[in-house]
C-alpha cells in the first residue's frame, strides 16, 4: 500500500464519523423538512457513481486500444465501485422521493438513466465473474457500449417529463447548506479514492501471483 494510505484512511473514517453531526447542524430545509438530510448522502454517492462509470469507460477504451492489463484492472476496480455507489444512490433516492414527490419511484430521466447505467455496470461484473477466461476484452467492449449509450438513454427517457431537480440547484443553495454538502462530497470522494486504490492493488497482486504460478509451472 502507498504510504499515504493509512493516514488517509484514518482521516476518511473520522470525516465519516463527523458527517452525522455536520448534517444534523445543517440548516433545516423548510419545504422538505427532515427528509432533506438524505440529500447529503444521496448527491455525493451519485457523483461517485458517475465518477466510477466515467473511469471504467475511459479505462476500458484504453484497454481496447493498447491491451495493457493495467487499464483492465483500473476498469474492473472502477466498475465495482460504480455498482457500490450506484446502489447507495438508488436506495437513498427513493427514500427521498417518497417524501419529496410522494412516490417511491418515478420514471424521470435521471432516475431511469441511473438505473439502466447501474444495470450495465452489474452486467459488467456478471460478465467478469462468470464469463471465464478472455472475458476482460468482452467486458471492455460492454463498458464502451454502456458509455456510448448514456446520451441515448437520456434523450429517449426525456420523452416523459422530468420532475428531478435540475443540476443548477446546487450552486444556488445557501452557503450554510453548501458547507456540509461539500464536506460530505469530500468524504465520499476520499472513500472512493481509498477503495479504488485498494481494489486496484488487490488486482495487481492477483496478477503478480498468477505470473508466479505460471513461471513455477514452466
Amino acid at each position, binding site marked *: 500500500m502507498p504510504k499515504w494510505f493509512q493516514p488517509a484512511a484514518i482521516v476518511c473514517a473520522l470525516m465519516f464519523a463527523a458527517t452525522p453531526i455536520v448534517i444534523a447542524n445543517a440548516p433545516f430545509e423548510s419545504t422538505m423538512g427532515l427528509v432533506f438530510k438524505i440529500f447529503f448522502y444521496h448527491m455525493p454517492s451519485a457523483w461517485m457513481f458517475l465518477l466510477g462509470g466515467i473511469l471504467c469507460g475511459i479505462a476500458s477504451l484504453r484497454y*481496447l*486500444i493498447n*491491451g495493457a492489463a493495467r487499464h483492465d484492472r483500473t476498469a474492473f476496480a472502477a466498475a465495482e465501485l460504480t455498482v457500490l455507489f450506484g446502489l447507495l444512490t438508488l436506495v437513498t433516492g427513493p427514500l427521498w422521493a417518497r417524501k419529496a414527490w410522494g412516490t417511491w419511484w418515478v420514471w424521470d430521466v435521471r432516475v431511469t438513466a441511473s438505473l*439502466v447505467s447501474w*444495470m*450495465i455496470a452489474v*452486467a459488467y461484473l*456478471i*460478465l467478469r465473474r*462468470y*464469463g*471465464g477466461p*478472455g*472475458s476482460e*476484452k*468482452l467486458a*471492455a*467492449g*460492454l463498458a*464502451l*457500449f*454502456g458509455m*456510448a*449509450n448514456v446520451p*441515448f*438513454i437520456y*434523450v*429517449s*427517457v426525456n*420523452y416523459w417529463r422530468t420532475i428531478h431537480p435540475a443540476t443548477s440547484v446546487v450552486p444556488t443553495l445557501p452557503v450554510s447548506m453548501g458547507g456540509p454538502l461539500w464536506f460530505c462530497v469530500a468524504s465520499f470522494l476520499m472513500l472512493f479514492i481509498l477503495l479504488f486504490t485498494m481494489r486496484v492493488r488487490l488486482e495487481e497482486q492477483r496478477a503478480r501471483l498468477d505470473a508466479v504460478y505460471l513461471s513455477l509451472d514452466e
Partner: protein
Amino acid sequence: MFARAMWLILRKDLTVEVRSGEVAYTTLFFAVSCVLIFAFALVRDGRAPEDGAAGLLWIAIAFAGTLALGRTFERERQSETLRALLMAPTARPAVYLGKLLGIVALLAGVEVILVPLVALLFNANALLEHPAWLAAILIAGTVGFAAVGTLFAAMLIRARSRDVLLPVLLYPVIVPVMIAAVRGTAVLLQPEVDTQVAWFWLALLATFDVVFVTLALWTFEPVMTD
C-alpha cells in the same frame, strides 16, 4: 473486396438457413408463442390494453432476436467455422456486417408474420394502416437491436455460460432502442398519427443505429482477437 466478403458471408448464412431452416423456424415459433402467452395474460374479454400491441411486438422481437443471435453463433462455434471466418484474409468488419445483415434479414422475415398476428390478437388494425412508417420503424429498430446483439453474441462465443450472458448484457444496452421503437410504434396506433413525434423517434433510432454500428465495427477487431 469488402463488399464482396460481406455479401459472401450473408449469402452463406442465408443459404444455410434456407436449407435447414433451423434458426428461422425456431425463432418464428418462439415469437408466436410469446405473443400468444402475452395475449392470454393481457387480453381480457377481447379487449387489449392501450398501446399493448406496440410494446408486445417489440418484446417478441427482442426475445426472438436473442434466441436467433445465440443460435446463429452457436452454429459457427460447433463447427469451428467462426475461427475459419476470422482467419480468412478479409477485413474483420466485413465479417461483422455480413453477420449483422443476416440477422436483420432473418428478423425481418419473422416480423412479416409477427405484425399481422399482433394486429389480429391485440385489436390493433391501425398497425397495418401506415405500412411505410411501420416498416421504417421496424427496420431502424431491428438494425439497432441487431447491431449491438451481433457484436455481443460474437464476443460471447468463447465465454462460459454465454446463453445466459447474452440477454444479461444485451437488454440494458438496448433500452433506448426499445423505448424509441415502442413509442414510435405506439404513435402509429393513434387515430391521428402525429408525424412529428414519429419522426422524432425514427430519427433517434437512426442515430442510434449509426453510432452503434460504427462503434461495433471498430470494437469487433480488438474484441475478436485472442
